[in-house]
């Protein structure tokens, strides 16, 4: 068990740490000013936190998909939302560990203080990231129940696609149309803009938190309804059985 936990810890931390240092060292090489370095570091740390958390939510079904054991989960007297919520909470804990570790690296290696905005803004920002992760992870689960094995690629591609549109490494104003408009409808854009505003970056949006949490609430509600529908469909079409063979 201990041996495997060490591997799990390595698996969780490896890509975020490698990604963080790759991007961080690139900013050093490009001799960016501290503000721009901070802008990019906020992006990479947020992305890492989201990726770790969303994959945990998606793995509520992905592990069963890979092990072909889905029917055992769905015959158990557990509500699918309990399963997703449990996975999300584990994801939140792991993601928090990654966030704190990368924040420390950021402070000591690149001299960028993540705690400057204060406890409340950081907490709200993190909550936004965690809800965004739930939204992405649930999308993967919905796609798995709809398309089976073909959908597992979504677990990795969705967050990368979000990184492209939501301004992880650059302001969304530099995106070609209609991408900035699309970015406005993704909650992460607003959470990033909110946190970066404490470092003097303005995206020109207003009511960032209201938009961020409002959109997240709307999408999560929509996904709960969608999840119910695709689960019903999976029980009608036999998808759960197909994914267990």
């Amino acid at each position: 068990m201990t041996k495997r936990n060490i591997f799990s810890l390595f698996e969780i931390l490896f890509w975020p740490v490698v990604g963080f240092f790759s991007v961080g060292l690139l900013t050093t090489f490009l001799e960016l000013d501290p503000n721009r370095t901070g802008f990019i570091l906020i992006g990479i740390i947020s992305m890492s936190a989201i990726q770790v958390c969303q994959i945990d939510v998606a793995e509520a079904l992905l592990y069963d998909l890979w092990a072909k054991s889905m029917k055992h989960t769905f015959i158990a007297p557990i509500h699918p939302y309990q399963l997703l919520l449990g996975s999300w909470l584990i994801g939140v804990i792991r993601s928090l560990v990654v966030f704190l570790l990368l924040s420390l690296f950021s402070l000591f290696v690149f001299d960028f203080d993540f705690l400057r905005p204060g406890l409340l803004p950081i907490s709200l920002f993190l909550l936004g990231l965690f809800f965004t992760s739930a939204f992405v992870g649930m999308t993967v689960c919905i796609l798995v129940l709809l398309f089976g094995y073909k959908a597992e690629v979504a677990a990795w591609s969705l967050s990368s696609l979000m990184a492209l549109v939501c301004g992880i490494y650059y302001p969304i104003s530099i995106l070609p149309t209609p991408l900035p408009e699309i970015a406005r409808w993704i909650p992460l854009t607003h959470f990033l803009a909110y946190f970066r505003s404490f470092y003097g970056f303005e995206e020109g949006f207003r009511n960032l938190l209201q938009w961020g949490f409002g959109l997240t609430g709307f999408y999560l509600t929509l996904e709960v309804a969608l999840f119910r529908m695709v689960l019903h469909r999976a029980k009608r079409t036999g998808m759960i059985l197909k994914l267990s063979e």
Partner: protein
Amino acid sequence: MASAIKAEGIYKSFYSGWLKRREKQVLKGIHLEVERGEIFGILGPNGAGKTTLLSILSTLLLPDQGRIEILGMDPRKEAHQIREKVNLSSGNANFLWSMTVEENLHFYGMLYGLAGHRRKKKVEELISLLGLEEHRGVSFDRLSTGMKQRLALAKSLLNEPSVLFLDEPTVGLDPSVSVWIRQQIQMIQKEKGMTILLTTHNMREAEFLCHRIAFLKEGKILTVGDSDSLKKMIRMGDMIKIEFEGKLFEDELGRMEGVINYSITDGLCEMIVDEGERRLGPLITKLSQDGVQIKKVTLGQTDLEEVFLEFAKSSDSDTGLYL
């Protein structure tokens, strides 16, 4: 006695293809009633619809039409409550690969609401019951097929189900392991008094385990009954083979009670009688009285496979008997 499982008019079709939709009708109006505490077998060839029927009854699949009651509950309205009282074990067992036997049982124990000391005790009890002690620390992907099957059975007992669904419980196992698994199933059922619904294409398994058997073919139940009554129903009779020396009086032999047919060739008499065990004694007495020297006697009883094949042959005609 109250029914554990009741199904009326179950239809199920699967569809494939995007542009040209193809329909495959898998179940065609299944009626089934399983009593509490009964081991009920669904016997049929591959593709008969056994797994589909089992999946519908275990709430994993929705029927297109029909009414189902599991322990008096409606799966459409009370699926969650039903899942608390049922469990499933499949022949081709699949569990989380990297987790050990013990970890898998703990994981599923959690899904069944077992916590702390209660879960630990239950897992230990099942590991011991199914002889998994030596393999408790072995990851699932390193287990033999027999051990995987034991684990599947252990997992299916975690919630002490009132109704246990077993889908081809011994498929792919070597004969000695199959016998052991069957014995365990029988023992567990006797001990816990649970209702078991099992699917199999193994006639011996059905005959050994089941109180009643349903023959399923191409989505239809051909007949239901216990193995003896099914054999009687088809009236195939038992075969008595007698190797002899001397002269047999053929006419008298043919007139004996219970004889359906007979043939005599080169010191071998083959007779089909209605009940082998009952007719053998008088037959031996008669032959001895006639001065025939009997060298060897073999009694071959009709097995369920022959009965099933006979039913399958006549399934297009009206043999859908329901006992």
